[in-house]
């Protein structure tokens, strides 16, 4: 009886081995980026904006809130609209010290992405308009009279997919020049949550 049972188990193992060898030759890819949602997406972001140049001398870094609305044309190329608002305090050392000022920016951008499984890096750049909420910088002789001007620049970031098909999170940094603030630039660094429809 024992010999019969042993031979039955060995026979079963033999069949099992035969099943394994019958699997497809290609390895299973995990995570599979093809299963990540692609197409229309939105991003909500929070972070900080700091000014450099003439504006940086009188405006402190400030808190920023923004959003992207974009579309993945290919896995590696997207077009997106970006809006960002930030609030700042006028630095010490001038007559408007402590006053608040906000910046509103809207840009159209292109974005190139290189994916490594669950993680990707991207570069982006574009042009747009920026608006200051008040004429405080004009009163300080930092900017010309007009509060609206063009802005242009780009940056890079890191995206990490959550594997839940629609969601990913990431970090980005962008550096832009501002034509309405003569000789001034800004650096924005944000963290975002992305939802791809």
């Amino acid at each position, binding site marked *: 009886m024992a010999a019969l049972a042993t031979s039955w188990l060995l026979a079963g193992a033999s069949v099992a081995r035969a099943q394994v060898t019958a699997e497809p030759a290609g390895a299973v890819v995990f995570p599979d980026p093809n299963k990540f949602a692609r197409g*229309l997406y*939105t991003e*909500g972001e929070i972070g900080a904006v700091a000014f450099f140049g003439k504006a940086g001398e009188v405006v402190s870094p400030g808190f920023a*809130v*923004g*959003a992207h*609305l974009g579309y993945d044309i290919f896995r590696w190329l997207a077009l997106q609209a970006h*809006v960002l*608002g930030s609030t700042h305090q006028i630095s*010490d*050392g*001038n*007559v*408007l*010290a*402590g*006053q608040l000022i*906000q910046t*509103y920016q809207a840009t159209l951008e292109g974005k190139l992405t290189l994916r490594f499984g669950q993680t990707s890096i991207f570069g982006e750049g574009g042009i747009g308009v920026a608006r200051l*909420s*008040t*004429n*405080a910088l*004009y*009163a*300080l*002789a930092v900017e010309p009279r007009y509060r609206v001007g063009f802005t242009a620049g780009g940056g890079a970031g890191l995206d990490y997919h959550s594997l839940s098909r629609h969601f990913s999170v990431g970090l980005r940094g962008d550096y832009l020049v501002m034509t309405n603030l003569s000789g001034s630039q800004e650096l924005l660094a944000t963290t975002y949550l992305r939802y791809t*429809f």
Partner: protein
Amino acid sequence: MSGARRLALVLAAFAPLGLACQDLNTPIYFPGPVMPALVLTGMPDAMGNTPRIENGLTLQFRNPTQSEQQALDMQAATLGFMVPWIQRDHVHIEMTYQVTNTDSKDGTWSIGVDGANEFTKYDENIVAMTLGMGNNDPPQYIPLIPVTPQILKAGQTVSGTVREDDFNEAELDLYGIGEWMSPFNAVLINNSQVNPIGIANYVPPTSMYPVQPVIPALIEIDVNFTADAAMTCSYAIRVRDDDNQLLHNTTDTLFSPTPTLFVPPAMTTP
């Protein structure tokens, strides 16, 4: 997910940012005439008085449109007295300043803010001169808005703000002085937030004169700077213009009233 729901979700995501981008109550800043505006050497004048310097700026407003003027006229007819075009409830003023002691010694500084509404101009120098007629006492300056004198160490800088509350009080005081014959020294000393007698105390609350008249805003701000050491004072005026009355467009015409200079009754020696 349907296309309509998807679009609604996208728009909803952008809605808070759109609201944040509205220029609600955005202030406009006016720098002082020059920067630094007021410079003192700390040397007393010929009479041995602490040196003073004054300058100011006039805010430029547009004239009312025809419909706005009609509304003002109707309101004036109802109330029974003139209603100002530039009103305290619609134009909110604040002043920021920065004082630097450029001397090698400590010094004491003070600021007095005067000004004018569209009816009356108040100048503490004129008032002091009038009160000083017939005596040899040092001049007594009574500004519309006093900034408490402070000691400033050599080489140091201090910043401060004359708040909207302070301007509100000054605007009420000037209105009482200019339009309602209120005793100027009592009005300026009284703090209406502590003792809110206001206009009601000077004008009987009859059907002709309501308790809450329409108070004009300042349209001219004059800054008197006093220091007994070499100091500079820069300032800027911040205006919140609720009804867009500041002059922006070249097609609008400049509102140019001619306020009457307030002169107190001269003190007479017995």
